[in-house]
């Protein structure tokens, strides 16, 4: 696998290091010459000391034969352009972009980036998991705007004492597992839900409001994030 990484900050550096250790062929592009030289000292001659946003240098770094281009600079707009140039100008089969503004996740996918990673969203997810919430928890974002969502049922949840078959679950959304006392089981249409259950669902983001009504109860519309 030949991976072209653009951006030699902490993310780009450790990504390159791990990929090399995994036996992959890697080229890292870093426009800051001093930073590029420092990485060469650490990792060897895998660094192209140029701006990966410049079409000329992206070509020279070998993007036309890359299996994957990962754009992990600190600027969302740069990551978008690197991925689009890689995809459409150099026919790279798979592109990955880091986004800092979580709102850009959906936009970037819409604009053709294959995989979008949001450190902000990940940190937010971890924080939400540590706080007792009355809300839907986003566990993971998948392709095609699908999300895996967890809802912990409180005593006042309209779903307590009922089964998935009795709930009005929006189309395009599926409840597929329940975690009870730390044990995960597949959710059947006749499983009776209890207080404290964590219900795991998969669906499009626009199902959230209805899902919130069914599993958490109607509150001040806080589910719509």
């Amino acid at each position: 696998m030949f991976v072209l990484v653009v951006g030699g900050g902490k993310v780009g550096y450790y990504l390159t290091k791990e990929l090399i250790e995994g036996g992959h062929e890697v080229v890292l592009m870093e426009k800051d010459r001093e930073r590029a030289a420092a990485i060469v000292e650490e990792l060897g001659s895998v660094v192209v000391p140029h701006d990966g946003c410049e079409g000329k240098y992206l070509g020279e770094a070998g993007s036309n034969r890359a299996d994957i281009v990962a754009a992990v600079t600190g600027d969302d707009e740069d990551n978008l352009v690197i991925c689009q140039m890689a995809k459409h100008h150099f026919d790279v089969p798979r592109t990955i972009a880091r986004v800092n503004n979580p709102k850009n996740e959906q936009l970037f996918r819409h604009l053709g980036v294959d995989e979008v990673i949001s450190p902000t969203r990940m940190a937010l997810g971890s924080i939400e998991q540590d706080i007792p919430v009355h809300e839907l928890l986003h566990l993971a974002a998948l392709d095609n705007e699908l999300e895996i969502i967890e809802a912990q049922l409180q005593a006042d949840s309209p779903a307590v004492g009922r089964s998935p078959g009795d709930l009005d679950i929006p189309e395009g959304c599926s409840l597929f597992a329940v975690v009870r006392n730390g044990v995960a089981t597949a959710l059947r249409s006749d499983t009776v839900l209890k207080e404290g259950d964590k219900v795991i669902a998969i669906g499009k983001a626009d199902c959230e409001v209805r899902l919130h009504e069914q599993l958490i109860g109607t509150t001040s519309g806080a589910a719509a994030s």
Partner: protein
Amino acid sequence: MRYVIVGCGRVGAALAEAFDNDGHDVVILDISTRAFERLSGEFKGQAIRGDGTDEDVLRKAGVDGADVLLALTEGDNRNVMAAQVATEKLNVQKTVAKINDPVRAAAYAELGLATVCRTTMLTEAILGYLTLRPTGMPSVISPVPHVHADEATQDGRPTPAGSPAAPQARS
């Protein structure tokens, strides 16, 4: 007509005043309020401080449904992103992005974005002057006709293969 200009540099400010003088509705954005000092005291449009690549900022500035958005900041990539957000998310009819890297400018023109490249324009202008012949180089590279990704899926028509919103082949 409603015109939106992202980046209040010399060109952005001059265009904003020209549109304003012609009686159009003008919104100009810049991340620095100092940039607005370039505008004359008579400018009647709105000058808003904010990031023109941020959909929420643009929406709040009333960009949704504008006739024209010109992305003229000093960052090629910011301009590309602002123009794409305007087209894909905010139903702006016509956009132009300034891209000073000629490779990127040509690539995005192929992808359906109208681009203007200062490097190419100046090179051509100077060469033309020195050789005393017009080069016939267009100053704005016209895009290939662009179809919204959403429209394409709704109508079942394919998005042009070159479009940034075209479906991607999985490897």
